Protein backbone atom coordinates (compact mmCIF):
# COMPACT_ATOMS: atom_id res chain seq x y z
CA UNK A 1 0.00 0.00 0.00
CA UNK A 2 1.04 3.62 -0.31
CA UNK A 3 3.34 4.58 2.57
CA UNK A 4 3.42 8.28 1.95
CA UNK A 5 2.08 10.88 -0.48
CA UNK A 6 3.83 14.21 -1.06
CA UNK A 7 3.84 16.75 -3.86
CA UNK A 8 6.28 16.78 -6.75
CA UNK A 9 6.05 20.40 -7.81
CA UNK A 10 2.61 22.02 -7.90
CA UNK A 11 1.04 19.64 -10.42
CA UNK A 12 1.96 16.10 -9.40
CA UNK A 13 1.51 13.62 -6.55
CA UNK A 14 4.47 11.54 -5.47
CA UNK A 15 3.24 8.24 -4.01
CA UNK A 16 5.88 6.24 -2.19
CA UNK A 17 5.36 2.50 -1.73
CA UNK A 18 8.48 1.98 0.40
CA UNK A 19 12.18 1.48 -0.19
CA UNK A 20 12.09 -2.18 -1.11
CA UNK A 21 12.36 -3.16 -4.75
CA UNK A 22 10.64 -6.47 -5.23
CA UNK A 23 7.74 -7.88 -7.20
CA UNK A 24 5.30 -7.58 -4.32
CA UNK A 25 5.87 -3.84 -3.93
CA UNK A 26 5.83 -3.36 -7.68
CA UNK A 27 2.59 -5.34 -8.11
CA UNK A 28 1.02 -2.93 -5.65
CA UNK A 29 2.19 0.03 -7.71
CA UNK A 30 0.76 -1.59 -10.85
CA UNK A 31 -2.51 -2.34 -9.09
CA UNK A 32 -2.91 1.35 -8.20
CA UNK A 33 -1.92 2.34 -11.71
CA UNK A 34 -4.51 0.05 -13.33
CA UNK A 35 -7.27 1.12 -10.97
CA UNK A 36 -6.57 4.80 -11.52
CA UNK A 37 -6.38 4.35 -15.27
CA UNK A 38 -9.82 2.80 -15.27
CA UNK A 39 -11.36 5.37 -12.92
CA UNK A 40 -10.38 8.28 -15.18
CA UNK A 41 -10.46 10.83 -12.36
CA UNK A 42 -11.01 14.23 -13.89
CA UNK A 43 -7.86 16.33 -14.03
CA UNK A 44 -5.31 13.49 -14.05
CA UNK A 45 -3.12 13.85 -17.13
CA UNK A 46 -0.45 11.19 -16.59
CA UNK A 47 0.29 8.29 -14.27
CA UNK A 48 3.84 6.96 -14.10
CA UNK A 49 4.42 3.67 -12.32
CA UNK A 50 8.02 2.68 -11.48
CA UNK A 51 9.65 0.08 -9.21
CA UNK A 52 8.26 1.46 -5.96
CA UNK A 53 6.77 4.85 -6.79
CA UNK A 54 3.72 6.17 -8.58
CA UNK A 55 3.69 9.71 -9.89
CA UNK A 56 0.32 11.19 -10.78
CA UNK A 57 0.39 14.48 -12.66
CA UNK A 58 -2.69 16.62 -12.96
CA UNK A 59 -4.09 19.77 -14.51
CA UNK A 60 -4.21 22.45 -11.82
CA UNK A 61 -7.06 24.25 -13.51
CA UNK A 62 -9.24 21.16 -12.90
CA UNK A 63 -8.07 19.76 -9.55
CA UNK A 64 -5.72 20.79 -6.74
CA UNK A 65 -3.11 18.77 -4.88
CA UNK A 66 -5.03 18.36 -1.61
CA UNK A 67 -8.26 17.29 -3.33
CA UNK A 68 -6.57 14.71 -5.48
CA UNK A 69 -4.51 13.44 -2.56
CA UNK A 70 -7.72 12.82 -0.59
CA UNK A 71 -9.20 10.93 -3.51
CA UNK A 72 -6.14 8.70 -3.76
CA UNK A 73 -6.11 8.03 -0.01
CA UNK A 74 -9.80 7.03 -0.12
CA UNK A 75 -9.40 4.94 -3.28
CA UNK A 76 -11.19 1.59 -3.21
CA UNK A 77 -9.02 -0.88 -5.08
CA UNK A 78 -10.21 -3.70 -7.26
CA UNK A 79 -8.00 -6.69 -7.77
CA UNK A 80 -6.22 -6.08 -11.02
CA UNK A 81 -2.57 -6.94 -10.58
CA UNK A 82 -2.63 -10.26 -12.38
CA UNK A 83 -4.90 -9.48 -15.27
CA UNK A 84 -3.72 -9.86 -18.85
CA UNK A 85 -0.10 -10.57 -18.01
CA UNK A 86 1.77 -12.45 -20.69
CA UNK A 87 4.96 -14.46 -21.15
CA UNK A 88 7.06 -13.04 -23.97
CA UNK A 89 9.95 -14.93 -25.53
CA UNK A 90 12.57 -12.59 -26.96
CA UNK A 91 15.18 -13.79 -29.50
CA UNK A 92 18.66 -12.46 -28.86
CA UNK A 93 21.92 -12.58 -30.81
CA UNK A 94 25.14 -12.50 -28.77
CA UNK A 95 27.55 -12.17 -31.68
CA UNK A 96 30.53 -9.99 -30.72
CA UNK A 97 29.18 -7.23 -32.95
CA UNK A 98 26.34 -6.88 -30.42
CA UNK A 99 27.84 -7.93 -27.07
CA UNK A 100 29.64 -4.66 -26.49
CA UNK A 101 30.36 -5.11 -22.78
CA UNK A 102 30.72 -8.86 -22.33
CA UNK A 103 34.49 -8.52 -21.93
CA UNK A 104 34.13 -5.86 -19.27
CA UNK A 105 31.57 -7.92 -17.39
CA UNK A 106 33.70 -11.03 -17.59
CA UNK A 107 36.79 -9.25 -16.30
CA UNK A 108 35.07 -7.33 -13.52
CA UNK A 109 32.91 -10.21 -12.32
CA UNK A 110 35.59 -12.84 -12.93
CA UNK A 111 33.02 -15.03 -14.63
CA UNK A 112 33.55 -16.65 -18.05
CA UNK A 113 31.51 -15.44 -21.07
CA UNK A 114 29.52 -18.64 -21.45
CA UNK A 115 28.75 -18.73 -17.73
CA UNK A 116 27.38 -15.20 -17.91
CA UNK A 117 25.14 -16.20 -20.81
CA UNK A 118 24.17 -19.41 -19.12
CA UNK A 119 23.01 -17.48 -16.07
CA UNK A 120 21.31 -14.87 -18.21
CA UNK A 121 19.33 -17.24 -20.45
CA UNK A 122 18.23 -19.55 -17.65
CA UNK A 123 16.01 -17.06 -15.93
CA UNK A 124 12.49 -15.78 -16.29
CA UNK A 125 12.32 -12.03 -15.84
CA UNK A 126 9.57 -9.80 -14.55
CA UNK A 127 8.74 -6.41 -16.10
CA UNK A 128 8.68 -3.74 -13.39
CA UNK A 129 7.99 -0.77 -15.65
CA UNK A 130 8.39 0.69 -19.12
CA UNK A 131 9.79 4.10 -19.86
CA UNK A 132 12.73 6.48 -20.01
CA UNK A 133 12.49 6.14 -23.79
CA UNK A 134 9.28 4.91 -25.41
CA UNK A 135 8.57 1.27 -24.64
CA UNK A 136 11.85 0.45 -22.87
CA UNK A 137 11.12 -2.42 -20.45
CA UNK A 138 12.89 -2.55 -17.08
CA UNK A 139 13.20 -6.26 -16.24
CA UNK A 140 14.47 -8.16 -13.23
CA UNK A 141 15.93 -9.79 -11.36
CA UNK A 142 19.13 -11.16 -12.89
CA UNK A 143 21.05 -13.91 -11.11
CA UNK A 144 23.44 -12.62 -8.49
CA UNK A 145 26.62 -13.80 -10.23
CA UNK A 146 26.11 -11.40 -13.17
CA UNK A 147 25.26 -8.18 -11.34
CA UNK A 148 27.47 -5.15 -11.98
CA UNK A 149 27.11 -1.36 -11.85
CA UNK A 150 26.53 0.70 -14.97
CA UNK A 151 29.42 2.04 -17.05
CA UNK A 152 31.40 4.86 -15.40
CA UNK A 153 30.98 6.93 -18.55
CA UNK A 154 27.72 6.26 -20.37
CA UNK A 155 27.76 5.68 -24.13
CA UNK A 156 26.50 8.55 -26.25
CA UNK A 157 24.78 6.08 -28.54
CA UNK A 158 23.56 2.64 -27.61
CA UNK A 159 22.32 0.80 -30.74
CA UNK A 160 18.61 0.09 -31.12
CA UNK A 161 17.67 -3.41 -29.94
CA UNK A 162 20.56 -3.62 -27.47
CA UNK A 163 19.99 -5.76 -24.39
CA UNK A 164 21.76 -4.46 -21.31
CA UNK A 165 22.16 -5.46 -17.68
CA UNK A 166 22.99 -3.43 -14.60
CA UNK A 167 22.66 -4.29 -10.91
CA UNK A 168 19.72 -6.73 -10.68
CA UNK A 169 18.02 -5.32 -13.77
CA UNK A 170 17.93 -5.89 -17.51
CA UNK A 171 16.52 -3.69 -20.27
CA UNK A 172 16.09 -3.45 -24.01
CA UNK A 173 16.87 -0.24 -25.91
CA UNK A 174 13.83 0.38 -28.11
CA UNK A 175 15.61 3.24 -29.90
CA UNK A 176 19.19 4.34 -30.37
CA UNK A 177 19.77 6.40 -27.26
CA UNK A 178 22.42 7.47 -24.76
CA UNK A 179 22.86 4.93 -21.99
CA UNK A 180 25.19 3.31 -19.47
CA UNK A 181 24.01 -0.29 -19.17
CA UNK A 182 26.33 -3.27 -19.90
CA UNK A 183 25.33 -4.45 -23.36
CA UNK A 184 25.42 -8.22 -23.90
CA UNK A 185 23.37 -8.76 -27.06
CA UNK A 186 20.75 -7.48 -29.46
CA UNK A 187 17.24 -8.43 -30.50
CA UNK A 188 15.74 -8.02 -34.00
CA UNK A 189 12.24 -7.81 -32.50
CA UNK A 190 10.37 -4.51 -32.57
CA UNK A 191 9.73 -3.83 -28.89
CA UNK A 192 7.98 -0.53 -29.57
CA UNK A 193 5.86 0.36 -32.61
CA UNK A 194 4.34 3.83 -32.86
CA UNK A 195 2.23 2.79 -35.88
CA UNK A 196 0.28 0.48 -33.56
CA UNK A 197 -1.19 3.14 -31.29
CA UNK A 198 -3.52 0.73 -29.49
CA UNK A 199 -0.77 -1.65 -28.37
CA UNK A 200 2.58 -0.04 -29.11
CA UNK A 201 4.57 -1.91 -26.46
CA UNK A 202 5.41 -5.61 -26.74
CA UNK A 203 6.28 -5.86 -23.04
CA UNK A 204 4.17 -4.26 -20.30
CA UNK A 205 4.52 -3.93 -16.52
CA UNK A 206 3.70 -7.23 -14.81
CA UNK A 207 4.63 -9.36 -17.89
CA UNK A 208 7.18 -12.19 -17.76
CA UNK A 209 10.06 -12.30 -20.24
CA UNK A 210 12.56 -14.98 -21.29
CA UNK A 211 15.38 -14.69 -23.80
CA UNK A 212 16.57 -17.33 -26.26
CA UNK A 213 19.71 -17.38 -28.35
CA UNK A 214 19.66 -17.01 -32.14
CA UNK A 215 22.56 -17.09 -34.61
CA UNK A 216 23.70 -14.08 -36.56
CA UNK A 217 22.13 -15.56 -39.68
CA UNK A 218 18.81 -15.99 -37.93
CA UNK A 219 19.15 -12.43 -36.66
CA UNK A 220 19.70 -11.07 -40.16
CA UNK A 221 16.84 -13.07 -41.64
CA UNK A 222 14.48 -12.38 -38.79
CA UNK A 223 11.02 -11.48 -40.01
CA UNK A 224 8.19 -10.48 -37.73
Amino acid at each position, binding site marked *: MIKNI*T*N*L*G*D*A*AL*YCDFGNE*IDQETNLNVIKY*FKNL*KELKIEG*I*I*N*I*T*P*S*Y*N*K*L*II*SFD*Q*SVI*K*YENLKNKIVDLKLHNKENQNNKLIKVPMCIDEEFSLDIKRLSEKLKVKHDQIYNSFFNKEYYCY*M*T*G*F*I*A*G*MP*FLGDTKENIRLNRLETPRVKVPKGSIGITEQFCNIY*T*YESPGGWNIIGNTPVKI*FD*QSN*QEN*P*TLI*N*PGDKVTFYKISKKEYQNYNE
Partner: protein
Amino acid sequence: MNKSYFEILRPGINSTFQDLGRFNQHHIGIPMSGVMDKRNYLIGNKLVGNSNNISAIEFAYQGPILKLKSAKVIAAVTGNVTFQILRTNSNIEKGKCYETFELNDGDQIDIISTNKSVYGYFFINGGFKAETFWESFSINTRAKIGPNEGAKFGINQKLFIKNKENKFQKKRIEYLSSKIEFIRVLKGTNFNYFSEEGKNNFFTKEFVVSKLTDRMGMRIEGPKIKNIFESNIRSEGLIKGVIQVPGDGNPIIMLSDYGTIGGYPKIAVVISSDYDRLTQLTPGSKIKFKSVELEEAENLYKLYEIETKSILNQIK
Protein backbone atom coordinates in the same frame (compact mmCIF):
# COMPACT_ATOMS: atom_id res chain seq x y z
CA MET B 1 -7.47 15.73 -53.16
CA ASN B 2 -6.33 18.90 -51.52
CA LYS B 3 -3.24 20.26 -53.24
CA SER B 4 -2.58 23.23 -51.02
CA TYR B 5 0.72 23.22 -49.20
CA PHE B 6 3.76 25.11 -47.98
CA GLU B 7 7.05 24.18 -49.56
CA ILE B 8 9.97 24.41 -47.15
CA LEU B 9 12.73 26.45 -48.78
CA ARG B 10 14.75 26.52 -45.55
CA PRO B 11 13.75 24.38 -42.59
CA GLY B 12 15.25 26.53 -39.82
CA ILE B 13 17.04 25.11 -36.80
CA ASN B 14 14.44 23.02 -35.03
CA SER B 15 11.07 23.41 -36.72
CA THR B 16 8.36 20.96 -35.71
CA PHE B 17 4.61 20.65 -35.30
CA GLN B 18 3.47 21.20 -31.72
CA ASP B 19 0.16 21.44 -29.92
CA LEU B 20 -0.83 21.09 -26.26
CA GLY B 21 0.91 17.72 -26.07
CA ARG B 22 0.23 14.08 -25.49
CA PHE B 23 -1.63 12.84 -22.41
CA ASN B 24 -1.76 9.62 -20.43
CA GLN B 25 1.13 7.78 -22.14
CA HIS B 26 3.82 8.12 -19.46
CA HIS B 27 3.46 4.47 -18.49
CA ILE B 28 4.80 3.39 -21.88
CA GLY B 29 7.61 5.93 -21.88
CA ILE B 30 6.03 8.73 -23.92
CA PRO B 31 6.37 12.23 -22.44
CA MET B 32 3.88 15.08 -22.91
CA SER B 33 5.94 17.07 -25.44
CA GLY B 34 3.83 19.93 -26.85
CA VAL B 35 4.64 23.62 -27.12
CA MET B 36 7.35 25.00 -24.87
CA ASP B 37 5.60 28.36 -24.47
CA LYS B 38 1.92 27.63 -23.95
CA ARG B 39 0.71 31.21 -23.68
CA ASN B 40 2.17 32.17 -27.05
CA TYR B 41 0.55 29.09 -28.57
CA LEU B 42 -2.89 29.98 -27.19
CA ILE B 43 -2.62 33.57 -28.41
CA GLY B 44 -1.63 32.55 -31.95
CA ASN B 45 -4.42 30.02 -32.36
CA LYS B 46 -6.96 32.53 -31.11
CA LEU B 47 -5.70 35.18 -33.56
CA VAL B 48 -6.18 32.96 -36.62
CA GLY B 49 -9.48 31.60 -35.32
CA ASN B 50 -8.37 28.06 -34.48
CA SER B 51 -9.42 25.85 -31.60
CA ASN B 52 -6.66 24.59 -29.30
CA ASN B 53 -6.12 21.12 -30.68
CA ILE B 54 -4.68 22.41 -33.93
CA SER B 55 -1.01 22.18 -34.68
CA ALA B 56 1.30 25.18 -35.01
CA ILE B 57 4.86 25.25 -36.27
CA GLU B 58 7.29 25.82 -33.44
CA PHE B 59 10.78 27.01 -34.33
CA ALA B 60 13.89 27.77 -32.29
CA TYR B 61 16.24 30.73 -32.96
CA GLN B 62 15.92 30.64 -36.76
CA GLY B 63 12.59 29.74 -38.31
CA PRO B 64 11.75 28.36 -41.74
CA ILE B 65 11.22 29.98 -45.15
CA LEU B 66 7.88 28.69 -46.43
CA LYS B 67 6.36 29.18 -49.88
CA LEU B 68 2.60 28.86 -50.21
CA LYS B 69 1.19 26.84 -53.12
CA SER B 70 -2.40 26.87 -54.40
CA ALA B 71 -4.01 28.49 -51.44
CA LYS B 72 -4.80 31.63 -49.57
CA VAL B 73 -4.45 31.58 -45.80
CA ILE B 74 -4.85 33.73 -42.72
CA ALA B 75 -1.64 33.51 -40.70
CA ALA B 76 0.04 34.85 -37.56
CA VAL B 77 3.39 34.67 -35.78
CA THR B 78 3.81 34.86 -32.01
CA GLY B 79 6.85 35.24 -29.79
CA ASN B 80 9.54 37.86 -30.11
CA VAL B 81 10.29 37.20 -33.77
CA THR B 82 11.70 39.05 -36.78
CA PHE B 83 10.14 37.91 -40.05
CA GLN B 84 9.20 39.18 -43.49
CA ILE B 85 6.71 38.36 -46.20
CA LEU B 86 7.89 38.12 -49.81
CA ARG B 87 5.00 38.80 -52.16
CA THR B 88 4.83 37.43 -55.71
CA ASN B 89 5.19 40.97 -57.08
CA SER B 90 8.63 41.12 -55.33
CA ASN B 91 7.38 43.40 -52.58
CA ILE B 92 8.91 42.67 -49.20
CA GLU B 93 6.80 43.41 -46.15
CA LYS B 94 8.19 43.56 -42.65
CA GLY B 95 6.27 41.13 -40.47
CA LYS B 96 4.57 42.04 -37.21
CA CYS B 97 4.01 39.54 -34.42
CA TYR B 98 0.63 39.24 -32.72
CA GLU B 99 -1.39 40.31 -35.73
CA THR B 100 -3.02 38.39 -38.54
CA PHE B 101 -1.89 38.74 -42.15
CA GLU B 102 -2.86 37.11 -45.40
CA LEU B 103 -0.67 34.89 -47.55
CA ASN B 104 -1.61 34.29 -51.18
CA ASP B 105 -0.59 31.69 -53.73
CA GLY B 106 3.17 31.99 -54.32
CA ASP B 107 3.90 34.22 -51.31
CA GLN B 108 6.80 33.35 -49.03
CA ILE B 109 7.23 33.89 -45.33
CA ASP B 110 10.83 34.14 -44.12
CA ILE B 111 11.11 33.73 -40.35
CA ILE B 112 14.51 35.25 -39.78
CA SER B 113 15.08 34.89 -36.04
CA THR B 114 13.75 35.00 -32.53
CA ASN B 115 15.06 37.93 -30.49
CA LYS B 116 16.45 37.47 -26.96
CA SER B 117 14.30 34.37 -26.73
CA VAL B 118 14.33 30.81 -28.03
CA TYR B 119 10.92 29.77 -29.37
CA GLY B 120 8.47 31.31 -31.80
CA TYR B 121 5.28 30.05 -33.45
CA PHE B 122 3.64 30.19 -36.87
CA PHE B 123 -0.10 29.62 -37.22
CA ILE B 124 -2.51 29.31 -40.11
CA ASN B 125 -6.27 29.27 -40.04
CA GLY B 126 -7.44 25.65 -40.20
CA GLY B 127 -4.01 24.22 -39.42
CA PHE B 128 -1.78 21.71 -41.17
CA LYS B 129 -2.63 18.26 -42.40
CA ALA B 130 -0.86 15.68 -40.30
CA GLU B 131 -1.48 12.39 -38.62
CA THR B 132 -1.96 12.45 -34.87
CA PHE B 133 -0.19 10.00 -32.56
CA TRP B 134 -2.00 9.43 -29.29
CA GLU B 135 -4.27 12.34 -30.19
CA SER B 136 -1.44 14.84 -30.60
CA PHE B 137 0.43 16.45 -33.50
CA SER B 138 3.49 17.14 -31.36
CA ILE B 139 6.79 15.91 -32.75
CA ASN B 140 9.32 14.53 -30.27
CA THR B 141 12.55 14.28 -32.26
CA ARG B 142 14.47 12.54 -29.47
CA ALA B 143 12.05 9.63 -29.24
CA LYS B 144 11.01 9.82 -32.93
CA ILE B 145 7.36 10.11 -31.96
CA GLY B 146 4.69 12.00 -33.85
CA PRO B 147 3.95 12.92 -37.49
CA ASN B 148 6.77 13.34 -40.04
CA GLU B 149 8.18 10.13 -38.51
CA GLY B 150 9.02 12.08 -35.40
CA ALA B 151 11.63 14.16 -37.22
CA LYS B 152 12.14 17.93 -37.52
CA PHE B 153 11.30 19.44 -40.90
CA GLY B 154 13.73 19.15 -43.80
CA ILE B 155 14.37 21.19 -46.92
CA ASN B 156 11.99 20.86 -49.92
CA GLN B 157 9.45 19.06 -47.82
CA LYS B 158 5.78 19.86 -48.38
CA LEU B 159 3.53 20.72 -45.46
CA PHE B 160 -0.04 20.16 -46.64
CA ILE B 161 -2.67 22.44 -45.22
CA LYS B 162 -6.38 22.16 -44.60
CA ASN B 163 -7.08 25.27 -46.67
CA LYS B 164 -10.17 26.46 -44.93
CA GLU B 165 -11.77 29.33 -46.87
CA ASN B 166 -12.28 32.20 -44.49
CA LYS B 167 -12.76 35.88 -44.95
CA PHE B 168 -9.69 37.81 -43.83
CA GLN B 169 -10.12 39.91 -40.76
CA LYS B 170 -7.35 41.95 -39.21
CA LYS B 171 -6.87 40.92 -35.60
CA ARG B 172 -4.12 42.13 -33.35
CA ILE B 173 -3.10 42.56 -29.74
CA GLU B 174 -0.29 44.34 -27.94
CA TYR B 175 1.73 41.76 -26.09
CA LEU B 176 5.32 41.24 -25.04
CA SER B 177 6.27 38.45 -22.64
CA SER B 178 8.01 39.80 -19.59
CA LYS B 179 11.53 38.70 -18.75
CA ILE B 180 11.86 36.41 -15.81
CA GLU B 181 14.08 37.48 -12.89
CA PHE B 182 13.74 34.51 -10.57
CA ILE B 183 12.76 30.97 -11.42
CA ARG B 184 10.42 30.03 -8.61
CA VAL B 185 10.63 26.44 -7.43
CA LEU B 186 9.20 24.03 -4.89
CA LYS B 187 11.66 21.85 -3.00
CA GLY B 188 12.12 18.45 -4.64
CA THR B 189 11.57 15.01 -3.14
CA ASN B 190 15.33 14.50 -2.59
CA PHE B 191 16.11 18.00 -1.32
CA ASN B 192 17.80 16.63 1.78
CA TYR B 193 20.29 14.58 -0.23
CA PHE B 194 22.37 17.73 -0.70
CA SER B 195 24.91 19.42 1.56
CA GLU B 196 23.93 22.56 3.49
CA GLU B 197 26.34 24.51 1.34
CA GLY B 198 24.89 22.96 -1.83
CA LYS B 199 21.32 23.83 -0.86
CA ASN B 200 22.37 27.31 0.14
CA ASN B 201 24.23 27.85 -3.13
CA PHE B 202 21.23 26.66 -5.08
CA PHE B 203 19.05 29.44 -3.67
CA THR B 204 21.57 32.27 -3.45
CA LYS B 205 24.06 31.95 -6.30
CA GLU B 206 23.66 32.77 -9.96
CA PHE B 207 23.46 30.02 -12.59
CA VAL B 208 24.01 30.32 -16.33
CA VAL B 209 21.96 28.52 -18.98
CA SER B 210 24.38 26.29 -20.89
CA LYS B 211 24.51 25.57 -24.62
CA LEU B 212 23.54 21.98 -23.85
CA THR B 213 19.89 22.90 -23.83
CA ASP B 214 17.14 21.59 -26.07
CA ARG B 215 13.48 20.56 -25.91
CA MET B 216 14.44 17.66 -23.64
CA GLY B 217 16.32 19.49 -20.95
CA MET B 218 18.18 22.61 -19.88
CA ARG B 219 21.63 22.21 -18.38
CA ILE B 220 22.75 25.03 -16.14
CA GLU B 221 26.18 25.90 -14.80
CA GLY B 222 27.12 27.45 -11.50
CA PRO B 223 28.47 26.33 -8.15
CA LYS B 224 28.39 22.52 -7.95
CA ILE B 225 25.59 21.15 -5.78
CA LYS B 226 27.24 18.54 -3.60
CA ASN B 227 25.35 15.37 -2.83
CA ILE B 228 26.07 13.98 0.66
CA PHE B 229 23.74 11.03 0.56
CA GLU B 230 23.45 9.06 -2.67
CA SER B 231 23.92 10.33 -6.22
CA ASN B 232 21.73 7.63 -7.80
CA ILE B 233 18.19 6.82 -6.78
CA ARG B 234 15.99 3.99 -8.02
CA SER B 235 14.64 5.13 -11.36
CA GLU B 236 11.23 6.76 -10.98
CA GLY B 237 8.82 8.99 -12.89
CA LEU B 238 9.67 12.48 -14.09
CA ILE B 239 7.62 15.47 -15.17
CA LYS B 240 8.60 18.69 -16.89
CA GLY B 241 10.16 21.26 -14.59
CA VAL B 242 11.92 18.73 -12.35
CA ILE B 243 15.49 19.75 -11.56
CA GLN B 244 17.75 16.71 -11.26
CA VAL B 245 21.31 16.86 -10.00
CA PRO B 246 23.59 14.04 -11.23
CA GLY B 247 26.83 13.06 -9.52
CA ASP B 248 28.81 15.84 -11.18
CA GLY B 249 26.78 18.46 -9.28
CA ASN B 250 25.44 20.33 -12.34
CA PRO B 251 21.64 20.67 -12.33
CA ILE B 252 19.50 19.67 -15.32
CA ILE B 253 15.97 21.06 -15.69
CA MET B 254 13.62 18.66 -17.49
CA LEU B 255 11.75 20.31 -20.37
CA SER B 256 8.81 19.15 -22.53
CA ASP B 257 10.52 16.18 -24.27
CA TYR B 258 11.90 14.77 -20.97
CA GLY B 259 12.57 11.05 -20.46
CA THR B 260 9.60 9.70 -18.48
CA ILE B 261 11.85 7.94 -15.97
CA GLY B 262 15.08 9.11 -14.37
CA GLY B 263 17.47 8.06 -11.66
CA TYR B 264 19.07 11.26 -10.38
CA PRO B 265 18.02 13.03 -7.17
CA LYS B 266 15.48 15.82 -7.54
CA ILE B 267 16.50 19.00 -5.75
CA ALA B 268 13.53 21.13 -6.86
CA VAL B 269 10.66 21.53 -9.33
CA VAL B 270 9.94 24.71 -11.32
CA ILE B 271 6.43 26.00 -10.60
CA SER B 272 3.94 25.76 -13.46
CA SER B 273 3.39 29.50 -13.82
CA ASP B 274 7.10 30.08 -14.58
CA TYR B 275 7.53 27.32 -17.13
CA ASP B 276 6.75 29.30 -20.34
CA ARG B 277 9.26 32.00 -19.53
CA LEU B 278 11.89 29.50 -18.36
CA THR B 279 11.89 27.81 -21.78
CA GLN B 280 12.53 31.16 -23.49
CA LEU B 281 15.87 31.68 -21.72
CA THR B 282 18.74 31.62 -24.22
CA PRO B 283 22.13 30.03 -23.50
CA GLY B 284 24.24 32.47 -21.49
CA SER B 285 21.22 33.87 -19.59
CA LYS B 286 21.77 34.27 -15.87
CA ILE B 287 19.16 32.84 -13.54
CA LYS B 288 18.49 32.59 -9.82
CA PHE B 289 16.16 30.23 -8.03
CA LYS B 290 13.67 31.26 -5.40
CA SER B 291 11.90 28.86 -3.07
CA VAL B 292 8.12 29.11 -2.66
CA GLU B 293 5.56 26.99 -0.82
CA LEU B 294 2.86 24.93 -2.52
CA GLU B 295 0.00 27.31 -1.74
CA GLU B 296 1.87 30.26 -3.21
CA ALA B 297 2.68 28.24 -6.34
CA GLU B 298 -0.99 27.36 -6.73
CA ASN B 299 -2.00 31.00 -6.39
CA LEU B 300 0.63 32.08 -8.89
CA TYR B 301 -0.72 29.56 -11.35
CA LYS B 302 -4.23 30.91 -10.85
CA LEU B 303 -2.89 34.36 -11.59
CA TYR B 304 -1.08 33.09 -14.68
CA GLU B 305 -4.33 31.62 -15.96
CA ILE B 306 -6.31 34.80 -15.28
CA GLU B 307 -3.69 36.83 -17.15
CA THR B 308 -3.73 34.42 -20.08
CA LYS B 309 -7.51 34.58 -20.23
CA SER B 310 -7.57 38.36 -20.17
CA ILE B 311 -5.04 38.50 -23.03
CA LEU B 312 -7.12 36.04 -25.05
CA ASN B 313 -10.26 38.05 -24.33
CA GLN B 314 -8.70 41.08 -25.98
CA ILE B 315 -8.81 39.20 -29.27
CA LYS B 316 -12.24 39.78 -30.64
